[in-house]
């Protein structure tokens, strides 16, 4: 994984400070040839305890920050770490290619699959090129094109969701952002191959759902999935964007809350300190989930899969 200089999130600072001190002590002990093993081990234990404690008590808004972390692995990272022979497909065949969504065919442990996901950048330049992972209509249409090809060839579809939302721009509106998303929802609901969606980072509203109507919808432990960003929700309902913490609490956008509400099907654990601290382990854990999914669904017939998928979404909602 890229060892870029990590700027710790505010709540990560006590942990990073402790690890910095440990590193200092190790250097000192080496240079001065003093045995500090027991002190260092004690500090390591303390750091571990502290990290565990902090990560067990994260506030929803802190989880939102982790989900948006610039070094959090994205679709391309996971493709590189989990799949082989990825053949990227570009363009919607109507208007353009949208770098905010990538997709194509690949092998997962020798099995054919289609992989589609939002793509942000790990730095500003890449983020601008990928429009911060906010797709235009052609992104959704490209995704649908790839899904239809997957259906044609009988490849299961795996989507990785990580977007602040669909792009609210002039061109996007002119070219039918709403229609593109709506079409995907409709077509994914009856796509005749198994479909797995994993929210890896930010599950931003309709822009996320546009590639996430699937048989199983899983979330990484510190991913979020929400109808609206906490900031926008705060500014609308509380009339104060600074109320994002209250909004994040109220929206119930974390993986454990959404699992309780049965709006997602499972949670994929993240490495200690979050996926941004260890891309490989995050990828391994996702790989396990893909494995379980492919094994379960390869045995089922299409009608059965489609009926279950329909009923799953049919039954979502709370009313009396």
């Amino acid at each position, binding site marked *: 994984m890229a060892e870029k200089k990590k700027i710790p999130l505010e709540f990560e600072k006590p942990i990073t400070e402790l690890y910095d001190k440990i590193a200092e002590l190790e250097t000192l002990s080496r240079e001065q040839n003093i045995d500090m093993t027991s002190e260092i081990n004690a500090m390591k234990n303390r750091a571990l305890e502290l990290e565990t404690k902090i990560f067990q008590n994260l506030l929803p808004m802190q989880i939102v920050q982790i989900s948006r972390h610039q070094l959090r692995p994205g679709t391309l990272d996971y493709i590189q770490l989990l799949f082989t022979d990825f053949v990227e497909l570009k363009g919607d065949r109507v208007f353009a290619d949208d770098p905010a969504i990538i997709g194509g065919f690949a092998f997962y442990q020798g099995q054919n699959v289609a992989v589609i996901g939002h793509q942000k950048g790990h730095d500003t330049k890449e983020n601008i090129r990928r429009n911060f992972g906010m797709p235009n209509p052609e992104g959704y249409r490209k995704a649908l094109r790839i899904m239809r090809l997957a259906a044609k060839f009988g490849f299961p579809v795996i989507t990785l969701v990580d977007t602040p939302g*669909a*792009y*609210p*721009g*002039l061109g*996007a*509106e*002119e*070219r*039918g*952002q*709403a*229609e593109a*998303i*709506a*079409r995907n*929802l*409709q*077509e994914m*609901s*009856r796509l005749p191959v198994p479909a797995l969606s994993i929210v890896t980072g930010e599950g931003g*509203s*309709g822009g996320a*759902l*546009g590639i996430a*109507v699937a048989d199983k919808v899983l979330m990484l432990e510190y991913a979020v*999935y*929400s*109808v*609206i960003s906490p900031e*926008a*929700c705060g*500014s*609308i*309902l*509380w*009339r104060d964007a600074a*109320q994002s913490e*209250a*909004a994040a609490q*109220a*929206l*119930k*956008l974390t993986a454990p809350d*959404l699992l309780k*509400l049965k*709006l997602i099907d499972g949670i994929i654990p993240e490495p200690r300190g979050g996926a941004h601290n260890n891309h490989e382990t995050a990828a391994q854990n996702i790989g396990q989930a893909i494995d379980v999914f492919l094994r379960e669904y390869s045995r089922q017939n299409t009608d059965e899969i489609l009926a279950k*998928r*329909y009923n799953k*979404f*049919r039954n*979502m*909602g*709370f*009313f*009396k």
Partner: protein
Amino acid sequence: MSVLDWFSKQKESNAGRRAGRLDIPGDLWVKCPSCAAVLYKKDLEENHKVCQNCGHHFRLTFEERLSLTADAGSFREFAAELSAVDFLDFEDTKTYKKRLEENQRKTGRRDAFVCGEAAIHGYPAVLGIMDFSFLGGSMGSVLGEKFVRAAERALEKKLPLVVFTASGGARMQEGLASLMQMAKTAAAVARLQDSALPYIVALTDPTTGGTTASFAMLGDIHLAEKGALIAFAGPRVIEQTIRQKLPKGFQSAEFLEEHGFVDAVLDRQEIKNHLAKILKHFVQPAEQR
């Protein structure tokens, strides 16, 4: 999202300046937000809330839309008993529960969507109507469920489905469950698409956000009422994003027609006739059945 527009308009309305509502500047007179003409309220209502001076279409309530669309006495409502629950205990400046109660009292209905069987110039159809005056026509669990039941009723009775949309988008107070109504309604449309039954959407002012990005844009035929705002992202959100003013008429019904998303832009008074003309291709009028 575009609910933002609705909430800020609510704010304006508290200050007594909201466009599109009739009860603001006194009881008898209304100022048209489009041409600024001062209209006698009774005349305006007799003209189906269309400005006699410039043709501006004021928003309609469910009852007004129904009486303009369905043959008198033909409407048989179903799923009327469904109402929302505050399952997240959502509280912003008010509890969701309170907001629901207020809107139920104000409109006399349980939620923002009413559906039933109806006749349109004799042609039978399942008819669904969204009401913007109920919490901005926001799409929550009740709306999703009722839409699906309407689609299922259409399938069961082999009837066309006609839906009038008017919505600020998703209902935030239901969190992710409200977003999932997009998938739920789109999946129900997919089932209709697999049948030979027509699904007709009439887009009215405003239709935005998650409603547009789901069942509203999936019709076999899209009609739109003159001048209606039809959008994914609301104008304010776009202006904040691109930091410039939007061109006049952007995201209007006419704009959508020009860009290929709407089959016909109609005057309010033409919609019923146009619907009947469409339905004639698919069903027999009731007396001939």
